[in-house]
C-alpha cells in the first residue's frame, strides 16, 4: 500500500530534515508510528497524503508515485483513496452528524452524492453505534461519539488507506479502547490499511506492527 525508498524532506525554512531509507505498509496492515513530538510523524502523514512533496526519493501509495501527480490529481487521490482521522475530530459544528460524515462529498464536485452514499453513511453510523445521533449536531455528542463520527467520515469514500493522527489522544481511557476497536473493526471491514500516529504506548500491542520514528529525523520539526 505504501512504499518509501530513500525519501528526503526538508522544510523551506531549513532546520528540520527527514530521511527515510525504506518504509512499507502492506494492504490491510495496521501499523502504528511512534516517536517523540517533533520527530516527523505528522510530516510523514502529510507526505503520504500529498499535502507536502518530498525533495528526493520515491513515495508510492496504492501503486502511484505521489510526487509525480499534479496538484489536482493529488487532491482527488486524497479525497478518494485516503481517509483521515484527527485528534480533535475536526467535525463542523454547523452540520449534523449525517452531513459531517458526508462532508467529503460536499467539498468536491468529483464525488457524486447519491442515495446509495446516504445509505452508506447511515450504515457506517449504525455500525459505529451513533445511528441515533445521525441527525444531531456534534455539540450534542460525547467526545467518544464525535470521534466515532469522524471515523465514519474517514471511511465514507471507501478509501484504501486510513491515516489516523493521534486519533485517541483526546479521549478518556475507556473511550480510547472503544474507539480504537471501532477503528480496527471498520478499517478491516472496508479492507483498508491503517497507519496510526500515536503517543499512547498502551495501545501499541493491538497493532500488527510498530515503527519508531525517532531514527528518521534530523534536526527539529517546526
Amino acid at each position, binding site marked *: 500500500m505504501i512504499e518509501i525508498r530513500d525519501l528526503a524532506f526538508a522544510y523551506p525554512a531549513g532546520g528540520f530534515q527527514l530521511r527515510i531509507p525504506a518504509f512499507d505498509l502492506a494492504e490491510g496492515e495496521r501499523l502504528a508510528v511512534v516517536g517523540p513530538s517533533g520527530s516527523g510523524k505528522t510530516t510523514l502523514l502529510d507526505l503520504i497524503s500529498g499535502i507536502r512533496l518530498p525533495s528526493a526519493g520515491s513515495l508510492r501509495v496504492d501503486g502511484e508515485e505521489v510526487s509525480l501527480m499534479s496538484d489536482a490529481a493529488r487532491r482527488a487521490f486524497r*479525497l478518494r483513496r485516503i481517509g*483521515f482521522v484527527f485528534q480533535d475530530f*475536526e467535525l463542523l*459544528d*454547523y452540520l449534523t452528524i449525517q452531513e459531517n460524515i458526508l462532508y*467529503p462529498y*460536499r*467539498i*468536491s464536485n468529483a464525488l457524486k452524492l447519491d442515495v446509495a452514499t446516504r445509505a452508506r453513511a447511515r450504515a457506517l453510523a449504525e455500525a459505529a453505534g451513533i445511528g441515533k445521533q445521525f441527525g444531531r449536531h456534534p455539540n450534542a455528542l460525547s467526545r467518544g461519539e464525535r470521534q466515532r463520527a469522524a471515523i465514519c467520515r474517514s471511511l465514507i469514500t471507501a478509501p484504501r488507506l486510513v491515516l489516523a493522527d493521534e486519533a485517541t489522544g483526546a479521549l478518556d481511557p475507556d473511550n480510547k479502547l472503544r474507539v480504537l476497536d471501532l477503528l480496527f473493526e471498520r478499517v478491516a471491514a472496508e479492507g483498508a490499511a491503517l497507519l496510526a500516529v500515536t503517543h499512547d504506548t498502551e495501545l501499541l500491542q493491538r497493532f500488527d506492527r510498530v515503527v519508531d520514528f525517532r531514527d528518521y529525523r534530523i534536526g527539529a520539526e517546526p
Partner: protein
Amino acid sequence: MSTLYLAWAHIVWHRWRSAVLVAAIALVLAVPATIERLLTASEERLAARAEATPLLVGARGSRLDLVMNALYFSEDRPDPLSMAEVEAIWDSGLAEAIPLHLRFQAEAAPVVGTTLDYLSFRGLKTGEGRVFATLGEAVLGAGVARRLGLGPGDSLTSAPSNLFDLAGVYPLKMTVVGVLEPSGTQDDDAVFVDIKTAWVIAGIGHGHDDVVAEDGEPGAAPRASAAIRQYQEITPENVESFHFHGDLAAYPVSAILAVPPDARAAMILRGRYLDAELGTQAVVPDRVISELLGRIFQIKRSLDAAVGLVALAALVGVGLAVFLSLQLRQREMRTAFRLGCRRSMIARLVLAEIALLLSMAGVLAAGIVLAAGSLADQAAGWLIGAA
C-alpha cells in the same frame, strides 16, 4: 450546489449573528434609498400642487407660510385679509377669486372654508353624497372619511382653537353631506365647508334663540341676556336664525386662489400687488416651492455625504465581522484542504456565504424601501406638514 448548501447551513447555525449582519447591511442599503424615495415623493407632491396653482394672494409677510398654509393646509398662520380683496379681484375681471379660510381643525383634519369654485378648480368630485349647500354642511376628503369611518349623514365637530378662550370659539357640530373621491393630494386629508360655515366656527356668525321683548309686544326693544341659548349645531329648524353682523366684505380670509384666464391677466394682476406699501401680496406658488426645494436639496446633498460616511463605516464593520468569521474558520478550512478540497472551493464557500448574506440583506432592504414606498404619500404629507 454544495457550496451554497454549506454556506446556508453555516448561516442557519449562526442565525443570530447572521441576522445582525443582514440587518446591518439591509439598513445601510435601505436608509439612503428610503430617504431618496420619500424626498422624491415629497418633491413631486409639493411641485405638482404648486404648478397647478397659478397665483395666490395673501397678506404681506412670509411667502412660504402663505403658500404652505393655502396649498398644503399647514399650521402656519399668515395674517388674514378681508373678503373685500376677493370682491376686488372678481371686479377687476383679471381672475376668478377663490377665498380660503384656514384656521380650524376637526378631528385633527384642517377645516377649509371656501366656495364650490375650489372643488371645481382642483377637480375634486364627490364619491359619495353631494357637495355642501348650506351652513353647517361639510364634505370630507377621502382620507379623512376613511380614517374617521364617516360618510354622508354622519356628523363631526370642529375642535375649539383654544380650550381656555372662554369668549372665543365654540365647537360646531357639522353634518357630513359628501365624501370626495381620492385625489392623492392634501385635499384627501381636509374637511371642506362653505366659508360662511368657517365664519360660524370662528364665532363671527352665529345663531341663537329669538331675542324679543319679555312681554313679546311688537316694536318693543329686544333684550339680550346670557340666558339666550346659542346654537352649536346648524339644523333645518335653526338655520334661519344664523346671521352675520356687520359688513361681510370685512370678514377674514386666509388667502385667495386667483385663477387668471391667461398669462397677460396674471401679469397685470401681479403688477397690482407689487407696491410694498400694500398690505397684500400676490405670489406664484411654483416659484416659492422651487426655492424651498432648492434649499431642501442643498441640505439633502450634505445629508447624502453624511449617510455615505455612515454607510462606509457600517460596511467596514460588516467587512471586519466577515474577516473575523473567516479567521475563526481557519481550522475548518485547513481540515477541508487536508481532506482534498480545492483552495478555490474554500474561496467559493466563503463567497457563497457572503453572497447569501448580501442577497438576504438586499431582499430585506427592498422590502423596507417598498414598505416605505407604500407609506411615501403619508410620509410626504407629514414632511410637507412639518416643512
